[in-house]
């Protein structure tokens, strides 16, 4: 195609854009003219411009800050969907990165476990999986973060009074925890009108509270890490043995014997 042909083609294809460009050029020229008139033909020296910019940067935060904050608040309140749409890609990326990092850590742990795949240890895991009915993957996974008893509470049913407790690191008052646990259980029973069905587990953050009732009292075990079936069975067995040995008497104010038994049984776990 000849040079003239290309020119004609450009004329046809960009006719609309050319018109817009011309309009913008006219508007820009007009604006420059207005500015010149306002400045009385005088051009602003750089130092003066610098001063104006500095002044604006000092005044802006005070004058505009509250307005911008309020505007943002209103915008967020009134256009939640748009805000979510805007923020989602950023927050989503952050969450994605975090999950990826956590998966990487977990993968490394599993890799480490699998490296031992042909070791005696792994063979034992497979045998254990076969006899306990737990999957090998589950056992390998649990082995990377085994369940640990953080706290145990022996609590009087109903009153919520603490009979004995064991704690790895005492942070909050044990009596208050016992009371609140009992209140939560009472609330659940009332809310679902089911006095014969008791709350069995409560999960919070990385912890799990495992609860077992025995008429006059109940036992709450606070666990961290992953509780596999084998650990749960061992815990259940220990609780049952403990319950068999303990006899809670009404109005018994000497709780030392309960504490002794609690340590005796649960220290083994």
């Amino acid at each position, binding site marked *: 195609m000849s040079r003239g042909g290309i020119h004609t083609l450009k004329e046809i294809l960009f006719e609309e854009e050319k018109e817009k460009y011309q309009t913008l050029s006219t508007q820009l020229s007009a604006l420059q003219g207005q500015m010149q008139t306002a400045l009385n033909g005088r051009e602003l020296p750089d130092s003066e411009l610098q001063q104006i910019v500095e002044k604006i940067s000092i005044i802006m935060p005070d004058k505009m800050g509250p307005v911008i904050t309020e505007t943002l608040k209103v915008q967020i309140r009134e256009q939640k969907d748009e805000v979510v749409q805007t923020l989602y890609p950023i927050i989503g990326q952050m969450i994605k990165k975090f999950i990826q990092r956590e998966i990487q850590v977990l993968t490394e742990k599993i890799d480490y476990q699998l490296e031992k795949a042909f070791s005696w240890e792994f063979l034992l895991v497979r045998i254990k999986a076969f006899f306990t009915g737990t999957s090998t993957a589950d056992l390998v996974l649990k082995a990377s973060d085994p369940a640990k008893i953080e706290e145990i509470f022996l609590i*009087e*049913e109903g*009153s*919520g*009074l603490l009979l004995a407790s064991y704690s790895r690191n005492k942070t909050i008052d044990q009596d*208050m925890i016992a009371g609140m646990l009992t*209140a939560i259980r*009472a609330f659940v029973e*009332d809310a679902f009108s089911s006095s014969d069905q008791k709350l069995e587990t409560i999960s919070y953050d990385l912890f799990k509270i495992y609860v077992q009732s025995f008429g006059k009292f109940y036992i709450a075990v606070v666990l961290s890490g992953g509780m596999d079936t084998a650990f749960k069975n061992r815990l259940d067995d220990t609780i049952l043995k403990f319950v068999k040995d303990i006899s809670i008497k009404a109005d018994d*104010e000497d709780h030392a014997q309960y504490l002794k038994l609690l340590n005796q049984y649960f220290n083994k776990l």
Partner: protein
Amino acid sequence: MEISKKVILTGHFGVGKTSLVQQFVKQKFSESYLTTIGVKVDKKQVDVDGAKVNLILWDLAGESSAIKVPKSYLLGTQGIIYVFDVSREETFAYLDDDLLELKKSMLEVPHVILGNKSDLMNEEDLASIKSKVPHEVAFTSAKENTNVEEAFLNLTKMML
């Protein structure tokens, strides 16, 4: 040897149960009103006649009538503190019915009745309220820390 006693605080909403507990346990008073949801458990150890007593205080959410208090919260209670607001007659107008209802679930459990916010009334008004209420009443002010410790200690003695 330490012993523990479960004490419940009950009464209408906004009578100052939580403020009384805060004043007794933490020697604090807050003007802002935050309604209690469900129950809040607190603890204070007191020394009465040489015995160390752990008071486990169940601050129950205020209800317009004792019938509405969940029965499971009352189980094993060893002491009751019934609180009313001296400046709001509706909070003690049905005190008799409320006490009867509580006694249905907890026979022979020692109790004290507290007329709170006494700082809002003068002596004459308080005497008039006392004559209206057919029970022994102790007037308290959680705000000015008047008679708060005495009221809790009095109940502790009754429980021992």
